[in-house]
């Protein structure tokens, strides 16, 4: 009885990708455009979502799913107070959301009422990008205080996203952040990446982001009454 080699050649995490495809199909039947927001803790994910709601809530219907490692509902509560449906998925300590967690979130969500679904992933610059959720876009938020070397240190994160928001630009005068150096790293890893520099504090740049997003939502669906 000698060992025998069996070729497999199967992507690890392919099970996650399959569920992600089901999520996408489900969102598309409901005519929903969806984005997955990833960033390190405190980069401004919730702040960007709040600004996006502020600018777009009179035009389209938005829903938010919050991923958190612990049953702390601070972020979800902020969203609900803004008058937008939000639910929280507790990852039970996991460093990322995965497609199965989003699927169970979608289960509980009033999908018929929304045009745009925003998912706030767990604050982490390494893990979330390995787990596709099935959303239409992966958005990364970088923020000025994190430093200009992040693309150089976390290349995988910058490879796996479609949109880059550069938040907290109001802090540029106070922090040694070399924007050219930062953007060079971004371009080396992901030349196609569309970026939006903005400040959630002053509101500068927020409109270009929300107008662009609105366009994408409209291309995808007919906003609901």
């Amino acid at each position, binding site marked *: *009885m*000698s*060992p*025998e*080699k*069996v*070729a*497999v*050649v*199967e*992507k*690890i*995490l*392919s*099970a*996650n990708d399959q569920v992600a495809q089901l999520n996408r199909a489900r969102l598309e039947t409901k005519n929903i455009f969806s984005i997955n927001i990833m960033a390190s803790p405190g980069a401004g994910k919730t702040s960007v979502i709040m600004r996006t709601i502020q600018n777009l809530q009179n035009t389209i219907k938005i829903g938010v799913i919050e991923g958190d490692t612990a049953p702390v509902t601070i972020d979800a509560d902020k969203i609900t107070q803004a008058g937008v449906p939000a639910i929280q998925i507790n990852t039970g300590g*996991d*460093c*990322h959301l*995965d497609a199965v967690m989003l699927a169970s979130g979608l289960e509980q969500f009033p999908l018929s009422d929304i045009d745009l679904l925003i998912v706030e992933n767990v604050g982490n610059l*390494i*893990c979330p990008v*390995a*787990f596709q959720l099935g959303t239409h876009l992966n958005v990364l938020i970088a923020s000025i205080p994190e430093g200009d070397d992040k*693309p*150089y*240190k976390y*290349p*995988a994160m910058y*490879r796996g996203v479609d949109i880059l928001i550069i938040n907290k630009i109001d802090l540029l005068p106070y922090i040694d952040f070399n924007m050219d150096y930062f953007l*060079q*790293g971004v*371009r*080396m*890893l992901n*030349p196609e990446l569309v970026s939006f520099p903005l400040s959630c504090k002053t509101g500068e740049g927020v409109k270009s982001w929300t107008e662009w997003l609105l366009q994408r939502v409209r291309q995808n669906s007919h906003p609901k009454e």
Partner: protein
Amino acid sequence: MHELSVTESILEIASRHAKQAEAIKVTDIHIVLGRLSSIVDDSVQFYWDIISENTLCSGAKLHFKRIPAMLLCLNCQYEYQLEGELMPCPKCGSPQVKVTTGEEFWLDSIEIER
């Protein structure tokens, strides 16, 4: 720190293929891992010993083939390895580069006994 989900995925894929091949035991598992996939093989090994217990794969040895991340300079066509910090082309200094390898992450083959 998502090595646990990764390890579970490895176990699921290996067991499925082993059953299909009517194996009584899996002895070795070969995994191809690009440098950019940010997985710590030691942690996978650690979880593996725990979660593979009492399965077809119990005791199977994990082999990791590490693929370096390579960058191709689009200006002078020089190809170089991304080691440590990301850098522009060392030959001509151009930042116009393309990642060619390093994102691989798959289970390549298993060795079984029937």
